[in-house]
């Protein structure tokens, strides 16, 4: 049988995940010296790692071409559909927040508010829960700009330290949800390769506690 295939989110999460794999005793030299390769063996070919953009990790896992994936909760909330979310890995922590210009009375008045965000689905769900109609505008780059130039009343975005907000005269008025890296699994893989996946899951769980 082929080794388990794990999709990792390129960048920040990749580094921490590799450290975690090393901590539980897998040799990750091949991944560290990957060059331009995209599929890399880990340990003694115990499993292989695929490097992908966050949203693609979910796509690969959902379609079953990767058995497992490591991806941020932010991406899951924005793009997720059907897979198993097995484990909160505890790193890559940050929060989704609703922010406005400092001192702005967001909930005041009766006009429909406009929100700029890179995460329209998260934003829609957040305001749906409040039974609040909002106009959502998708922005690709620095969302902080939108309220400053008058495009929107507020933004929904990921906040790590809050320094970007502060530097631009914005403030968090409400936390939407906590975010951290998650281990996800394809539904069929978990059933067909239960023992292998559970063994890895248990090791990871022990190492993150």
């Amino acid at each position, binding site marked *: 049988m082929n080794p388990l295939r794990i999709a990792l989110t390129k960048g920040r999460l990749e580094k921490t995940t590799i450290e975690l794999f090393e901590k539980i005793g897998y040799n990750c030299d091949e991944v560290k010296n990957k060059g331009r390769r995209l599929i890399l063996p880990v340990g003694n070919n115990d499993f292989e790692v695929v490097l992908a953009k966050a949203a693609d990790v979910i796509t690969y896992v959902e379609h079953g071409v990767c058995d497992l994936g490591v991806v941020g909760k932010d991406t899951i909330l924005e793009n997720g559909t*059907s*897979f198993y*979310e*097995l*484990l909160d890995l505890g790193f890559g922590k940050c929060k989704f927040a609703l922010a406005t210009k400092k001192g702005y009375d967001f909930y005041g008045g009766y006009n429909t508010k406009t929100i700029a965000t890179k995460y329209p689905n998260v934003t829609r769900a957040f305001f749906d829960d409040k039974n609040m109609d909002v106009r959502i505008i998708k922005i690709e780059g620095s969302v902080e700009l939108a309220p400053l130039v008058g495009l929107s009343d507020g933004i929904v975005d990921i906040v790590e330290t809050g320094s970007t907000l502060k530097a631009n005269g914005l403030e968090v008025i409400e936390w939407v949800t906590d975010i951290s890296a998650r281990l996800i699994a*394809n*539904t*069929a893989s978990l*059933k*067909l390769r239960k023992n292998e996946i559970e063994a890895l899951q248990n090791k990871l769980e022990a190492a993150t506690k």
Partner: protein
Amino acid sequence: MKKYLRITPEGTKDFLFAEASAMDDICGKIEKVFVSRGFQKVITPGIEFYDVFSIPCSGISQESMFKMVDNKGRLLVARPDSTLPIARMVSSRLKNSALPVRLYYKQAVYRNNPTLTGRRNELMQMGVELLGVKGLRADLEILSTAVKAISSVANDFRIELGHAEVFDALSKELDIDDDYKEKIRVSIEGKNYSALNNLLDRLEPCKAVSAIRSLPSLFGGEEVFTKAFEICEDTNAVEALDYLHKIYDSLIPLGLGDKLIIDLGLVQRNDYYTGIVFTGYINGIGDAVLSGGRYDDLLSVFDAPMGAAGFAIDTDAVTIKQLADSDVSYSDKPDVLIFAQDGYEIEGINLVSQLIEGGTKAEFSTLPTLEATKEFASKRGIAEVKVVG
């Protein structure tokens, strides 16, 4: 205006040659299982009234249906599921027939999936429904039919088995509203431990809470029962577990071994399920290829209360897998092409018939000249051209 003249709508495709043959082959094998076990074929309309699928427990969301309007302004949908139309049909046209009735179908369902996800919007499904009966015998018949059907088209498969009542009974012990229950169900279904823990931490700790906390991890072999009996105290939940155990033990003699998995976290979106629920997986396909269960309350929505159970198989997915493995070849090429000279056409056609009767794959050339026939033969890789006259 741009015309979409040469492409098919998103999520649909043409099935050519080997794909179509493989599909026929797969469906034929499954059909043989269904027919041999006494199921009778039904075909329901491709379009139905929206109302059939908008009942509270249908589990089919409004946005996932393709809608049309008839000339009286009534809302129609392209059939998104076959079980509900069959329930409608049984509650009306088969109301007075001898029960139970065993029905099977082979028809496409249509789902309006989000774009660019690679999901199929037209899915061929085959399935059975056993209506008008409840209890162990009926459940065993449905499950063993499911096993026979899936094993007729794949060797490396798993059937997982759960019971809708386990979660239902446990959640009734909690002081929560339907929305909260649904959130809990979704997190169990997704084996989302962190979300589930967050939801449960907000509730008063009790036996039921800790039992629900364990549900998503309760899957595997017989050992699952030992663990489950330790943590479940609710009478109805224990009753459901007892029943599931009985089913499990009864199925063991079928030689399923580790192909049969118990999953108490199997709490499907179709909340019409009331008893056993099950799904089937085939190695190499990233999604369930078979799913079904018992839905004893559904028929009362159609004013014909009766026990019912059934399952559907995603035959497209099985076909794709079959083609990928492709140790079976679906050759669509003739061995010999017969060209008839002018005036010898009927002789040529007769020769083709003779050769076919003798077991040779022969084809009559409809091209006007021998040169054109030879050129066509070489393009298609047909080994021989025979000339008549």
